[in-house]
């Protein structure tokens, strides 16, 4: 699935950097009905994890009250050059990943 990741390409060691991640997902709440009265089954992303060179730096549990195409912004300290990995896990076996690289000087 399409994901939009925003990580600064370069940072100085020790800087606090903002990471923004957005993925496309319907986030169906499971509380809506079709016109003929049937409940639309829940289909949401339940968990998001961000790892920086393998170490978890941020994790979130998401609920139906998170808007469609979940967007998250959070911060981390730039420590080393390397890779940021993002993982979304959800209902019905949903799983998607994305990654970004950063150069720390």
């Amino acid at each position, binding site marked *: 699935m399409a994901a939009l990741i925003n990580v600064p390409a370069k940072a100085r060691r020790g800087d606090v*950097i903002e990471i923004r991640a957005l993925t496309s997902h319907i986030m169906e709440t499971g509380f809506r009905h079709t016109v003929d009265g049937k409940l639309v089954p829940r289909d949401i992303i339940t968990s998001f994890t961000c790892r*920086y060179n393998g170490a978890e730096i941020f994790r*979130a549990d998401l609920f139906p*009250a998170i808007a469609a195409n979940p967007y998250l912004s*959070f911060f*981390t300290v730039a420590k080393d050059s390397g890779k940021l990995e993002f993982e979304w896990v959800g209902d019905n076996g949903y799983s998607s990943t994305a990654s970004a690289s950063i150069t720390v000087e």
Partner: protein
Amino acid sequence: MPTTRRQFLSLAGGVTAAGTIPVVTLRPLQATPAMLNHAIRNIVGEAPIRTGRVKLDIPPLVENGNVVPMTVSVTSPMTADDHVKSIHVFNEKNPQPNIGNFYLGPSSGRAQVSTRIRLADTQKVVAVARLSDDTFWQVAADVVVTLAACTEEMN
């Protein structure tokens, strides 16, 4: 006997009033303030919750409850000894009281999280932060929602 204007209006008013009451009581299942407290206690346990340190940035008036931008920040040095472990956001009147749990650590550098949420009604949003010394801090914000999320029909 011809119906007078006054009779007609009182009849019409009566029908309207009778018609609106069931519509109001037939509203979908909602979280209640009791469920909100229960959800908070699930996270916090018996620990006292103090007010302060947490800041909740959310628009006070929302036109579209489907997409409400929200930022939670906590005053904290974010060192190994003194940092925010997690931030939990709750609501009062969505069908479910939870909005999100966010887990941070000393490597976060700044205790701030932004996301976009859904609000089904005009209600209170509560953010609770758990610090590394296991104290809990909270803040509440009232949001007026003109177009509700979650419960509309699908086409």
